[in-house]
């Protein structure tokens, strides 16, 4: 009996969005190999009863068995301790594959497991084809390039690229069997707790509004100077929008890194992204991929960003942006 093990993070009693994406991929693998889906869920000692109440509902996501890892050592997040617990569950298997989401912690924990068990791991996978040799398709360059690769090892370890595959919807039918829940008391050593969370700093959360903003005004090299960004602040203020910038603008010190949109910055998903004086390097574009519409303001109609644009104004941002702000004031002033 082969099975697939999935790391599931719960939010409000249900798998969070990225875990639901991982469950979808795991379900596909299980179907292909004729196996079951098992989930491993973490809870601190105080959260354990709540998690035990919520875990049977994972049956609606195709999970047959939940290994609920709870214990004193898990009160604060420690990557190696979580990995020790997953490794303990995995070796009790056997499992054909272990799947984690593209979340920061899930990816980190699975990489620890891969190192401990000494098997390969494929990160940011978008599709899996089990067979004599398993083939995976995974993202490179934050999704600008796809790689087809062979994934060997026993078990196969992979993380699912975030927001690249559909999240599994729970089965609405009452016939979905509740998952069986088994409590696991992990054997965690002092060495597993050497790197752990010791506190939280809630003063540094400034880029989150950028990730959630409905409208984003972005600026790049075309602005020409740090001072010129004042006109973006003005337009953003009028629209209730967040200000974002390209990597060039942060590398030149014009703007703080917390405002950077891109592969090494924040991923945005607004209804409208107004990209001002941005050429559209891959590094930037992958951060704006989830924008519903892009309005480009740029002097160069051959700039790569036009390939992603819904709307465009050809012109110098330092002339066009103030004109738009003035027009907004005029129409508002006029009633």
């Amino acid at each position, binding site marked *: 009996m082969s099975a697939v093990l999935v790391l599931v993070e719960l939010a409000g009693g249900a798998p969070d969005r990225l875990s639901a994406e991982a469950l979808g991929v795991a379900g596909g693998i299980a179907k292909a190999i004729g196996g079951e889906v098992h989930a491993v869920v973490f809870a601190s000692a105080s959260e354990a009863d709540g998690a035990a109440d919520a875990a049977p509902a994972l049956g609606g996501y195709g999970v047959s068995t939940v290994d609920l890892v709870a214990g004193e050592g898990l009160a604060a997040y420690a990557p190696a301790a979580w990995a020790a617990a997953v490794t303990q569950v995995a070796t009790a298997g056997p499992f054909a594959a272990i799947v984690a989401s593209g979340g920061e912690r899930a990816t980190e924990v699975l990489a620890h497991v891969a190192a401990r068990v000494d098997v390969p791991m494929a990160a*940011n996978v978008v599709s899996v084809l089990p067979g004599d040799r398993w083939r995976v398709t995974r993202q490179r360059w934050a999704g600008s390039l796809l790689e087809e690769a062979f994934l060997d090892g026993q078990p196969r370890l992979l993380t699912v690229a975030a927001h690249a595959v559909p999240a599994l919807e729970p089965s609405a039918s009452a016939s979905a069997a509740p998952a069986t829940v088994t409590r696991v008391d992990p054997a965690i050593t002092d060495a597993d707790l050497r*790197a752990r969370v010791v506190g939280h700093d809630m003063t*540094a959360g400034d880029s989150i509004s950028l990730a959630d903003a409905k409208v984003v005004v972005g600026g790049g090299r075309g602005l020409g100077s740090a001072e010129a960004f004042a006109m973006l602040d003005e337009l953003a203020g009028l629209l209730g929008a967040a200000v974002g910038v390209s990597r060039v603008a942060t590398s030149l010190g014009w703007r703080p890194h917390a405002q950077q949109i891109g592969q090494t910055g924040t991923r945005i998903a607004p209804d409208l992204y107004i990209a001002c004086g941005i050429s559209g390097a891959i590094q930037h574009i992958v951060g704006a991929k989830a924008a519903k519409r892009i309005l480009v303001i740029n002097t160069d109609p051959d700039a790569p960003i036009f390939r992603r644009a819904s709307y465009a104004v050809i012109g110098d941002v330092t002339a066009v942006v103030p004109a738009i702000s003035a027009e907004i004031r005029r129409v508002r002033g006029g009633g």
Partner: protein
Amino acid sequence: MRILVLVKRVPATGGRIVLADDARSIDTRYLGFVVSPHEECAVEEAVRLIDANGGESVVLTLGPTEAADQLRDALAIGIERAVLLETDGSDWDPVATAGAITDAVKDLEAAGGPFDLILAGNESADSGGYQVAIRVAVALDRPIVTGIKALEVRDGVATARRQVPGGADVYELPLPAVVAVREGINLPRYPSVPGRLRAKRKEIERIVPERRPGGPTLDRLQVPVEQEQHVEILGNGPEAAPRVVELMRELGVL
């Protein structure tokens, strides 16, 4: 203190990726190369820590002979020594890469003493495997944190911050340790002209690494099909402003 920084040479891709004829690598004939962005910040962080605490810094990469250029970039801003694990330029998977780096760390430590801190980037810009630093740390039995955007080292303890929704998680780990950083932890400096000249004269230590089997094994690459996007040109210059504002109203964002 002694610090080792791990970096990777990656192409500067610009606006569009073009594949080589065999579809196993990127066509880099018209591209420059850089240190992968997170690692550029790891280099800067190492220079600052050594400036503040004294000691020695070493930069290490695994790559083709041309990767010496990226090592010189690190030497130019103040790293003292550079080690190249020289390959034939083919794609090394994360298991093989981490194995070769671990071997090299053991040799360097046997000769020059232990590293208090090994700094790496969170993930490389090109392959994005998210695991080499963790594999090296586990093989050396050292604690590691990843995704770090602020780092302090004091009295043998590293305090590191990782951004999470609404703020940051604070980690503490005893040295010796491994820390994988993200861009934004600092703003890397530009090398000075004397720095570049000094770097040019320095010797790069070259080692031919042993390649162990690993994975995942690259088969071929493909550029995802881009959706054809129809662009509506709203106008030229400031005269387009009324049409832009009209559009904002239509979209309900005003």
